Structures are given as structure tokens and as C-alpha cells.
């Protein structure tokens, strides 16, 4: 397989949202063909330029997917499948990024706050962020403020995302931010919040840096806060 071919195939499979070879993909009938996982592995084995893989294979593909979404040819499930494929690719490429001089876009920690187990939204955001080139670590659910603070201290993320579904648990977002302040870490990380009971106003009132009404908005806010 020529170098060009593999990257074209990667692009094609991102657009089709095919993570691995047993994926049907959007158009169907592609089961058995190498998916993004196999193709990235092959590309790495062939020592293709990681920058090329990312720019021409992944980013271009996501741009095309974005266009199709604008034209209402693709819907959210399609975008998510493509983002998932990119996320898988980025995970495989991660060890090689540093030596290629590629800095990850940024690191994001995500958590559902104390007392709350809801995480669909957070899980979607994870996929989208990874698909956009961020490194994402999901700390989990029902997270105590001090556990989150410890993770921020250890991982040094640029962004911290907090999620809650209940009005009774969203107060823990305030507690978490307070805990960050008390630990002297507040100015080291940008805090974005999301979830059904919260809002732009609530974000401001607790001193958060941003609010995302859904995964796409969250991504947009994080992108806008990412210093180039």
C-alpha cells in the first residue's frame, strides 16, 4: 500500500466512522476492510509522517464531516462516530506525538461531581474532544472535590470539565472551584461546566470560565479558550 493510499483510506474511514475492521460504516458493506485502528497501525509500521497522518488523514476528514453536518447530510450520530474514530487514532498516535514535535491541543480532565452518577453528556463530550485532538481523561462519576483537586495537581490539565444533572448536586461544582482556590490551583486551569440544571448565569455566579449547553458548545468554548 502506497503512503498516499493509506492516508486517503484513513480519511475515508474517519468519514465513514469506522473504528475497526468489523465496523459496517455509514455506507454499509465495508465489514472486513481495515478500519482506522488497523490503518493507523499500518501507517505507523510504515513510519509515515505523524503530522501528515493527523492533518491529511484526521483533520481534513473531520472538516469534511463538519461540512456535511452543516449541509444537514450528516447528523449528530454520524459526527460522533467519526469523532470516535479520530479519538481511537489519536490514542494510537499519542506516544509518537512528542517526537514529531506535535504538541497536543491540550489536556482536559472531566468529572461528574459528587453525588451524581449521570454521564451521557460527559461521555459524548469525551468523544468530541478526543476527535478534536485533545487528550482527555475521564475521572469518573460522584467525584469528591478534593479528589478532583488532586487529579488537577497531578495531571496539570489546561481544562477541567464538570458535569451534573441534578439541582441538588450542581452545588458541588461551586465546592470544587472553591477547593481549587484553596489549593492555589484555580488560576492554573480553566473550568467549564455543563449539565441540565446549570446555565450561563450559574457558571458566572460560581466563577467558572465557561458553560456548554451541549457537547458541541463545550467543544467550541474550549477551542475558543485554547491559546494558540
Amino acid at each position, binding site marked *: 500500500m502506497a503512503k498516499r493510499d493509506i492516508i486517503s483510506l484513513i480519511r475515508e474511514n474517519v468519514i465513514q*466512522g469506522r473504528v475497526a475492521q468489523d465496523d*459496517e460504516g*455509514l455506507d*454499509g458493506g465495508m465489514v472486513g476492510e481495515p478500519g482506522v485502528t488497523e490503518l493507523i497501525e499500518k501507517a505507523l509500521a510504515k513510519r509515515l509522517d505523524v503530522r501528515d497522518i493527523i492533518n491529511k488523514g484526521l483533520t481534513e476528514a473531520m472538516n469534511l464531516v463538519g461540512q456535511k453536518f452543516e449541509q444537514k447530510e450528516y*447528523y*449528530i*450520530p*454520524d459526527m*460522533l*462516530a467519526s469523532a*470516535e474514530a479520530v479519538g481511537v487514532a489519536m490514542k494510537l498516535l499519542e506516544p509518537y506525538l512528542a517526537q514529531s514535535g506535535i504538541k497536543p491541543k491540550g489536556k482536559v480532565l472531566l468529572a461528574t461531581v459528587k453525588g451524581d452518577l449521570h454521564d*451521557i453528556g460527559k*461521555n*459524548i463530550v*469525551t*468523544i468530541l474532544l478526543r476527535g478534536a485532538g485533545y487528550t482527555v481523561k*475521564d475521572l469518573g462519576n460522584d467525584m469528591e472535590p478534593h479528589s478532583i483537586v488532586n487529579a488537577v495537581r497531578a495531571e496539570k490539565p489546561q481544562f477541567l470539565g464538570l458535569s451534573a444533572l441534578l439541582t441538588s448536586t450542581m452545588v458541588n461544582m461551586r465546592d470544587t472551584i472553591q477547593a481549587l482556590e484553596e489549593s492555589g490551583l484555580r488560576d492554573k486551569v480553566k473550568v467549564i461546566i455543563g449539565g441540565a440544571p446549570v446555565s450561563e448565569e450559574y457558571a458566572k455566579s460560581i466563577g467558572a470560565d465557561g458553560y456548554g449547553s451541549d457537547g458541541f458548545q463545550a467543544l467550541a468554548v474550549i477551542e475558543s479558550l485554547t491559546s494558540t
Partner: protein
Amino acid sequence: MPREGILVPNPYVRITDEQVQQIHRASLQVLLDPGLICFSKKAAEIFHSHGAEVTTASSADHPHWHIKIPEKLVIEALDSAPKTVKLGARNPDNALIMRGDEPRVYFISGSETNIWLDVDFPAYVKKSDSSIEIQVPEFHPRRATVADLCQSAHVCEHLETLDGYIRTVNIQDEDITEDNKDVNKFFASLNNTTKHFMSGLTKLEQLDNVVRMAELIAGGKEALKENPIISFITCLVKSPLQFVEDTTDTFIEVCRRGLPTVVSSSPQAGTTAPIKEAGIMAQINAEVLAGITLGQMVNKGTPLLYGSVPVMARMDTLGDSYGSVETSQYNIDCVQMARFYKIPNYSTSGVCDTKIPGQQASIERLFSDIVVTLSGPQYLHCAYGLLDCNAVFCLLQAVLDDAHFQMIKFFLKTPRINQQELAETMKQIKEVVATPQKLYIRYIRQVMRSGEISAPYPFEGDGESDSVFALAYQRMNELLAKPVEHIDPDTTAKIFREIPGLLPRLNVYKEGK
């Protein structure tokens, strides 16, 4: 390929088999005692010649006869009445095939209103803050014209869920007379829709003209028989238990020609029928059976629909309360009676009491549309666009109705639960549960594109304000802008040559148009 309509696999039944039998027997009794009061001499003679007991009642001005119809005649008629009725169409793919024992529902427009409601959207300014402006729909009633009839046929041609067209407005132009109303009504409709067309006939003398018109369009006498592109609604009955002279005579002539027609009765519970359900059912069933019997005596095997338009009276005015719950109950009972006889049922739903589109209209219509559809009538004339009982027609309302019919039809799709589906989805379950995110979203994609997911309400807007009317209005204009297939120039020319009384302005090929 005929239209699919929607099959209702487990139709909702309101009354038990025992109750159906009881009504059937009670109706037979009613047909003997008190029997029918018939104002049509022709019908009285036909009944008499078949062995019914017919006595002349005295009345110089309006002669009438008392008719006792024996069970034997009714049973014979029920036997010979076709159990499958085909309604044809200019476009053969729009044909409707109805089997009396199959709860496959076709949705039809109708009926004939005097008033057309125009809509516009003037802007209003908030008194306390003149920078805030909103658009509010305003409805303007006026008498309907033949141009309106053309427009409504045009829109109905493009309404996805509408399977057939019953004329929606009464044309009241200055140059429409009793003598030319029918030919213009039929032409205006047939020229703007390729779906089946059903209508009442204003004057019996016009029957031959409209039949001839249909023959020209269908491609000849035999072609019309094969593909009956027109059918009739004949309200022979004036409740209680009276056969009216002019419509009964029309009914007889339509049956003689073997064209499909609806035996229709519209008793009002509380005024022209008993207020109690058992009573109105015994009566309406008797009335329809009497009509079916007459039709089969005139022409054995002629296609008929069991027509039911029962309605409840409202207590404050004794006017029709189509929006009442009882009205739906009676209609469902009639569906069951027709199914018992295996004769296709012409049923009614969606008519509401309120005069303009709005909350009340939506609730009253949706309620009866859902429950009556679920009972599985073959031919459901469900009031697309009708308001104020049957007095007003509004195109905007018709567009709104189409949206909720899409929901109803979608609801009735056959569930896909089988071993193959289960195996496939169990594989998905295993895969997804193993992933950290535990989301099934990627599997939506294929299903999404095969039409198996319902669309969100088409007039949703941004959720901040109610933009249903504005969006429906846009849609209405989109539908009006879509072209419609007129009758070809040759046939049109033939029609205008042969059929008297047609308004020249209806000829779309005429010069200067």
C-alpha cells in the same frame, strides 16, 4: 400499485361481538317497526317490487310511503354487496383498494364547506415596549369559490398522508348555478389532483355529464369501470329513518350505473336519534342497512360503502358537537358494524367545533383522529382543514393535519422484533457495555437513514415562542408552489366541447391565461 394506506393490525374494538349482534338484530327490528318513511316514489316502487311491505301515507304536497323491510331482503343485500371496493384515480398508483374485513385505513379529505378561511400574519407591537414585535396569524372568512376548490385540490395533491380527495368547499361564484355547479365542481377537482375524487351531486340531471367527463378522463366507458376515478356520497337518509326524495333518486341512478357510492347517514344523538348509544346505533345501522338494501335491489353487486357520520348534539345549543368524545365512540361502533358485514366503512374523524386553528382545534382533532384510526375503518374522511364542524375550510389547518397524520401513520408501523434483530442488537449490547463511554450512538446511523426513525414535529420552531402557524404557513406556500398535473390538453378540449356549463376560466390551456 394502489396506495398503501396504513394497516391497523389489532384494531381497537369498543363493543363486544355480542353487542354487535344485538345492534344488528335491533336494526332489523327497527326496519320492520316503525320501518322507513320514504319520500322517493322510485325507491318505494323498488322496495315494493322486491316484496317489502309498502303503504302509501297521505300527503298532497309531499307524498311518502311507509316501508317495512323484511330481514330476508337485508340479508340478501348484505350478501351481494361487494366486500372489496376499488376506487380508481387519474394516476393508477393512487388507486384505493378496500376490503371490508381488512382494517387498512385510507385518509381522505372532506366535506363541503361554505366558508374559506384566508390567513395572513400581521405584526403586532407590545404596548409597553414598542421595540418588541410579534407576528400573529389572523383568519379572514369569506365565501368559497371555484378557484379555492382548485387550490385546495392542488394542496391536497401534495399532502403526503392524504390518500383521496373529497371536495372541500361549496363553490359560490356569481356564475355558478344549480345547473352548472356539479360539472364545475368535478372538473376543478379532477383537474388539480390525480388522487381519487369523491363528491356529492347537487342535481341528478347533471349525473350523466359528470360521468361522461370521468369517462373522457379515464379513457372510455370500460376504462372508467376498471378504474372508477370518481365516486359519490349520497345522503339518502334524513334521520330518523326517512329517505329523502332527491338524494334517494340520485342514489338509485348512481347504483344503476355501477359507480361506487357511499350510503350515508348523519343522525345527531339527542335530536334526530336517541341520546343513548344503544339507540343511535340501532337507528343508524338500520338506516344504512336500508340504503344498502335499496342499492343492491337496484343493481345487484354495485359497489357501496357503509357510510357513517353519527354525531352528538351539544347541550347548550343542540348544534353538532363533533368534538365530543361520544361522536368518536359512535363512529368506532359503526366501524365494527361495517366490519361485521364485511363492507368497507366510510368513517368520520377530525371534525372540531372551534372556528379557527388553535389549541382547541388541535386537541379535538387529534383525539378523534387517533381513536377512530385505531379502530381500522377503510375510508376515513378525517376533515383535513375543516373547522367549525363542517362550515369552514382552512388550507393552513389542512397542512397542520397532515403533520399529525404522519405521526399516526408512523405509530402504526409494524414492530420489527424478531430473532435476527435480537441477535444483532445483543451483539451491540455486548460491544457497547465493554466500552468506557457505553454509548450506542454509532449504531443509530443506518437506522436513521432508512426512515425508521420518526421525524421531530415539523413546525417546531426554536422553542422560545410558538411558531407552528408561521412554519405551517410557509409549508402551505411551498405546497402551492409545487406543480400539479393537469388533465392533458386533448382531453381538456374534448371535455370543454362535450360537457355543457363549464366555466371557461377553468381551462388552463385557454389563450390569455
